[in-house]
């Protein structure tokens, strides 16, 4: 789902070997990735990553890791997930956080001097994780700091908006929390996340130095990481514990892949969490899952055997142990995207390569066919073409002006239409309730096309209907328009009449006063007491409003109702 930018050289260093462009294109299938853009000079690649559930892949490090595992046939363990010693650093969570932003996870990364490309990647990763995975920082947000500036333990606490002040990134002078929310660009962008809270989250070190206002902005003093920094402090806060920890795990392995030594941080909660009150993060909270070999083979339609399945999974980063009929699998700590056995099945297929599976033609016998409505629609279209009418297709979305006011329907019983709450533009803000305005749009745009104009469309319209569950119903409608210097009611009625003759449907016309038509030249098409549509000569004012300079006659029929009749 995200598109990220990576540097070819940086990527190959992380991968541990050079690749050709062709090799890379093939390998990227492993991460559901595709190169969208290449800059040969800078070595920059824009890679689109499809999988919305694999945030660990949304970075150069992540892509390189997944491919490296494949090339090496297995993953190397990250030892910091099983710390032997007690963490050196601690974060204390203050009471009350559970009501605002309950969870935090943190770690340190030491010994990797941040390079220029490394910093670019780090910032990109932070953005993608917080925006997409963290739902625009609501669920997860991330802070990165210079470790030497911090005196532990750090407290994750609450403060009144006016009381606490610090200099945020991008500013020269200290602002209160309230001012940050009101004036800082990030405050204005993300402030809504904290709306309704009297006190706001704050990270403070032992000396009272403010690290940041999560999830809004870091302090400039402590939280402005620069190229060359060797000691970092990373924290993730949020509303979903597993997502918070997973995000930290991803950042930890990314930094570790660049050579940093990751130090765990102890987080002390004054309240219970799913995983306990004292957590050492990064933390591998994944559980093994046992899947019958048969399940995997049945889903893939191919006998693979326990060994091949185990190799496929370890070659994709899983921890996997196979017995005769089962495989026990566990995801690496930077993934948490398996909800169902089907997810593991896909990883087996991806790791094996889709080309390893021979397509099997569908063999079950099924009868093909069209719906009644579509069959009738096709018959009508054929008849209309036979009468010399050119078929049109229009957008279903239109403007109220086109559908109502230009048809002289404002304030009448015909002015109800389905409208959109969040239109991109007024031009496309409503669903058409009839086809005629779309045909008039054609007329307005086609004065130079030689006459006569005989046009029609069979298409869906949305008719407001309070009796319906959704307040409107989708109807297939036929609209026809005839325009030339002496276009007349009887001429288009001949077409309607012939249509009904071939559809073997009796009908009558009942005079109707309809604002879109000339009085005395409009009728309701009625069949066995049911209204099927309208026919008439368009009112000169309608033509004027559309800037159409030719007399036009039209009819419109609900194909749905014709289908019911048949």
């Amino acid at each position, binding site marked *: 789902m995200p598109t990220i930018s990576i540097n070819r050289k940086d990527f190959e260093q992380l991968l541990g070997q050079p690749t050709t462009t062709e090799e890379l294109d093939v390998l990227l299938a492993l991460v559901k990735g595709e190169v969208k853009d290449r800059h040969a000079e800078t070595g920059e690649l824009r890679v689109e990553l499809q999988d919305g559930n694999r945030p660990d892949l949304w970075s150069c490090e992540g892509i390189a890791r997944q491919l490296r595992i494949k090339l090496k046939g297995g993953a190397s363990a990250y030892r910091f997930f099983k710390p032997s010693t007690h963490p050196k650093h601690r974060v204390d969570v203050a009471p009350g956080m559970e009501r605002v932003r309950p969870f935090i996870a943190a770690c340190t990364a030491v010994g990797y001097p941040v390079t220029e490309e490394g910093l670019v990647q780090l910032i990109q990763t932070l953005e993608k994780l917080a925006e997409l995975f963290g739902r625009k920082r609501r669920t997860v947000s991330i802070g990165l700091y210079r470790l030497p500036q911090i005196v532990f333990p750090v407290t994750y606490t609450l403060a009144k908006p006016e009381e606490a002040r610090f200099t945020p990134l991008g500013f020269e002078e200290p602002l209160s929390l309230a001012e940050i929310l009101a004036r800082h660009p990030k405050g204005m962008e993300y402030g809504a996340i904290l709306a309704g809270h009297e006190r706001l989250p704050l990270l403070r070190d032992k000396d009272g130095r403010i690290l940041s206002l999560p999830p809004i902005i870091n302090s400039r003093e402590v939280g402005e990481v620069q190229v060359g920094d060797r000691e970092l402090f990373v924290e993730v806060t949020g509303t979903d514990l597993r997502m918070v920890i997973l995000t930290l795990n991803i950042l930890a392995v990314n930094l570790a892949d660049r050579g940093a030594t990751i130090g765990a941080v102890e987080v002390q909660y004054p309240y219970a969490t799913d995983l306990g009150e004292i957590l050492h993060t990064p933390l591998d909270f994944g559980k093994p899952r046992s899947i019958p070999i048969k399940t995997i083979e049945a889903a893939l*339609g191919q006998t693979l055997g326990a060994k091949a399945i185990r190799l496929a999974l370890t070659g994709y980063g899983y921890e996997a142990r196979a017995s005769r009929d089962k495989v026990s699998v566990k995801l690496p700590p930077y993934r948490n995207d398996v909800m*169902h056995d089907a997810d593991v099945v896909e990883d087996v297929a991806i790791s094996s390569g889709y080309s390893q599976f021979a397509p099997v033609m569908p063999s079950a016998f099924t009868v093909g066919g069209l719906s009644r409505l579509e069959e009738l629609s096709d018959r009508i279209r054929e008849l209309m073409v036979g009468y010399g009418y050119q078929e049109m*297709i229009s957008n279903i979305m239109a403007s109220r002006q086109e559908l109502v006011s230009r048809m002289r329907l404002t304030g009448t019983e015909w002015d109800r239409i389905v409208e959109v709450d969040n239109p991109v533009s007024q031009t496309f803000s409503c*669903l058409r309730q009839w086809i005629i305005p779309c045909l008039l749009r054609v007329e307005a745009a*086609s004065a130079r*096309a030689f006459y006569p104009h005989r046009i029609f469309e069979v298409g869906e319209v949305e008719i407001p209907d309070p009796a319906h569950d959704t307040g409107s119903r989708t109807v297939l409608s036929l609209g026809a328009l005839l325009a030339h210097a002496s276009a007349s009611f009887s001429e288009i009625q001949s077409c309607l009449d012939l249509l009904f003759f071939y559809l073997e449907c009796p009908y009558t016309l009942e005079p109707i006063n309809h604002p879109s038509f000339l009085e005395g030249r409009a009728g309701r098409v009625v069949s066995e007491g049911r209204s099927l549509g309208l026919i008439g000569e368009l009112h000169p004012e309608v033509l004027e409003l559309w800037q159409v300079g030719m007399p036009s006659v039209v009819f419109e029929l609900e194909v749905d109702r014709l289908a019911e009749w048949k």
Partner: protein
Amino acid sequence: MADTASIIDSLHPLEIKVLAALGRQLAGPSPSSLQEEQLAKAAELEASQLSMAVEWLLTKSLIRVETEKVVPIVSLTKVGELYFEKYSPAERIISALRQAAQADKRLTIQDIQAREGIEPADMSGAIGSLKKEGSIRIAPGGGVEATGTPSRLAESLRAILQQLRGSPRELQAFAEPMRHVIQQHAVKRGNPHEPFRIDDRVERWYALTPDGEQVARLIAQQEVGQEVSQLTPELLKDGAWRGKRFRKYTISLRPPRVAAGKRHPYREFLDMVKRKLVSLGFQEMRGPLVESEFWNMDALYMPQFHPARAIHDVYFVKEPTHARAIAEPYLSNVAAAHRNGAGTGSTGWGYEYDLHRARRLVLRSQGTAVSARTLASGPQVPGKYFSIARCFRYDQVDATHATDFFQVEGIMLGPDITFRTLLGLLDLFAREVAQARDLRFTPAYFPFTEPSVELHVRHPRLGWMELGGAGLFRPEVTQPLGVDVPVIAWGLGLDRMAMVALGIQDIRDLFTADLELVRTTRGRF
């Protein structure tokens, strides 16, 4: 000279009429040449038709100009027309003097000039002529008096004006005294303010050349002049067509355009796709344009917090905002699947599912919504379904984004379906729908399928392109809707193929309002 018969075949009907008319002169006692006007009359042609035909025949050397005469022609100038309507200065002076005399008044030249608004130059000319004729005299003290002697000049002018009123005439048609008056009062250099103009007109008399005579004789013999251009029911009825000559057409000319009744080219393409799918055993399914979020997304196991469900991705309906109800047991089943997997073998998304949000109305954003409804409606097993569904996406409209567009989507259900059947189905689509021989499968991601595949084919004109996406529906999708067999969900991205087939570059042109464009677009399927 080419042979006479073939010359006749190449003649235009207008030319034949002219030759026939001149041919008739040969036979008669009168001179063999005809003046233009006479010729037009004899050939029953309009002046413009005649001049065209004469031009052509001169070029072909079938006629020649026998005599050319210069004829002076008199016509009215603007001043002349004014004289006709408001009378000439001489008439006006006399009439003014009569009226003054009756009122016992005296008028000076200046009085008359002011009263009648006559130009000074016209005034002096007219006074001079009238005085000479003795129609007026100047009394001592400057007063002007009518003598009662009629002005011959004024009368002549009136007569000439009347004769020229309708059309110009030859100068020779007037009697000598009149001719003199005309010449006196014709526009000359230095005196543009006159009622008449004398122009020289060249009049031509045409006669047949020797070749022309031959052709004309043949025309007379064969009654070519009686040539029939249109076979009529009358000719058929009484057999009169026999012995008639039918005019030969110049068939190399472009015919006039007609407006044909025709399917829309894009619809033709979609009809082709529809036929293919039906022939492959797929049943058509349909669904509403306005959908609840439930059917559009929840039922497809897209969590309610999914980034593609936000205000900038789908269109929300303004009124009513929510559907009245979602059918049970589907609502409860899907809600449970989102919460905790609900016995599907899944962990679920693990969040508090919002029942109110489920009823929020949107414009259908994906054809898969139709598939979800089909799954819930007791589909056939084994079964194959497709829909060509109009979908709506929140996008700025440009050359590659339409506000609403068609999605070709469907499902296939069956107890024996596996990942390999999925590949088989896509293989079939590649060969049958896209006529592609080279294809490849790559891993893909859709929120509602696992495993998921993208189908790429080598298009003869576009090279490698993505033709579609597909996958096996997640059990979290099928089981809550009451389906217990594996289901393939597939979608084909055919718009690019359609645009190539129709030769257009801008996706908006698929829905164009330009009739001329639709009339002239041809599909190459």
